[in-house]
């Protein structure tokens, strides 16, 4: 058996995950990146996106919101504002949030202060729906 990665995911509210995983894909600020055991130490920020990891043949998906990742000596520390596993996501709520954000964006112009906020909300909702869709 090859070496494993120790994945630790924490939010300000609680420790979400602490597991041994084989493979990890992160939504980095400048693009997706995959982490395998033996990766060189890296520190990167994350954007709103989908984080997925593999244990054996099973794939797991987590929707994450702003944060960053530290990889050091096969220990992966993920610090994020929010993290929701695909089986925790309330699809109806996410859809509603998406609708709300879309409606708000239609009425706002790009100069408005809340435009960026709504855009971020839209992104979050989209990611959530995308991640929830991958539930098996």
């Amino acid at each position, binding site marked *: 058996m090859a070496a494993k990665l120790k994945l630790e995911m*924490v*939010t300000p509210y609680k420790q979400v995950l602490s597991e041994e995983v084989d493979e990890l894909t992160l939504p980095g600020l400048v693009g997706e990146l995959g982490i395998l055991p033996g990766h060189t130490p890296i*520190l990167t*920020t994350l954007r709103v996106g989908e984080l997925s990891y593999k244990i054996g043949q099973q794939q797991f998906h987590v929707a994450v919101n702003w944060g*960053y990742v530290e990889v*050091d000596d096969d220990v992966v520390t993920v610090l994020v504002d929010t993290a929701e596993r695909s089986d925790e996501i309330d699809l109806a709520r996410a859809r509603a949030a998406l609708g709300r954000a879309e409606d708000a964006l239609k009425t706002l112009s790009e100069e408005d202060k809340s435009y960026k906020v709504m855009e971020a909300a839209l992104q979050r909702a989209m990611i959530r729906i995308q991640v929830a869709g991958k539930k098996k």
Partner: protein
Amino acid sequence: MPSLKDIKKRISSVKNTQQITKAMKMVAAAKLRRAQEAAVAARPYANKLQHVLANLARREEQQDGHPLLTQREKNRALVILLTADRGLCGGFNANVSKEAERFIRNNKEGFAQVDALIIGRKGRDFLKNRVGDRIIKVYEDVTGAVSFKTAQLIGEEVVQMYTEETYDAVYVIYNAFQSAIVQNVTVEKVLPITAAESETQSNDTVDYLYEPDRAEVLAQILPKMVEVQLFRALLESNASEQGARMSAMDSASRNASEMIGKLTLQYNRARQAAITKELMEIISGAESIK
């Protein structure tokens, strides 16, 4: 000597008060447990962040410092005071508020001026009459259910004021939670960020790959650190408040039952005296008929 009826009235009024304090104690105990759990749950995040930051900042020292890391001339400072919105929790509010007042007045660190940003109604009430002109902003109704959003909001504001050089240092004063009975008034420096306090790791010289680059990563993490520090202070303060209220209400309930005991004794004595008096009257009445 109060009449029997008066004493009876007092007993029932004290009983009523005791019922209220008992209920408040119970509520505080339940809230305390939740607040404590939240404080404990937030710890790993803060620790990990501190660890990463310590690694980052140490290397940053040799290069040009980030604005949030550089020590500036001590001109104006901001104190963030964390209090509760409600009273009936012993010395909880008074202790921190007094410490804040002392901090503003005495100005030990040698700032030209110290201003205050207050969280909680009680802190505002206390400082308004003493150093009212130094209060720049008051947040209310945020201590009940502490959310990271609140900390973020305040953090962003503070960081902005700091980078605009409105203030050259930011401190936070709060009740650190030690146990349900013990709370320590704590003064903590929030800005500029000092990484020295976190213990150095043994494998300190790992050179990370940074993505997109170090400055960018640092610029994102440092404000986060401020938010997390505030968030932790908020959680601790909340737990302390519930703990202080619980012990205050506990002693209030105990005092009430002590008082009830005393009053009951007094009542019984008065009753006895009345009976004796009546008996004497009857006997002496019968005596005189003979």
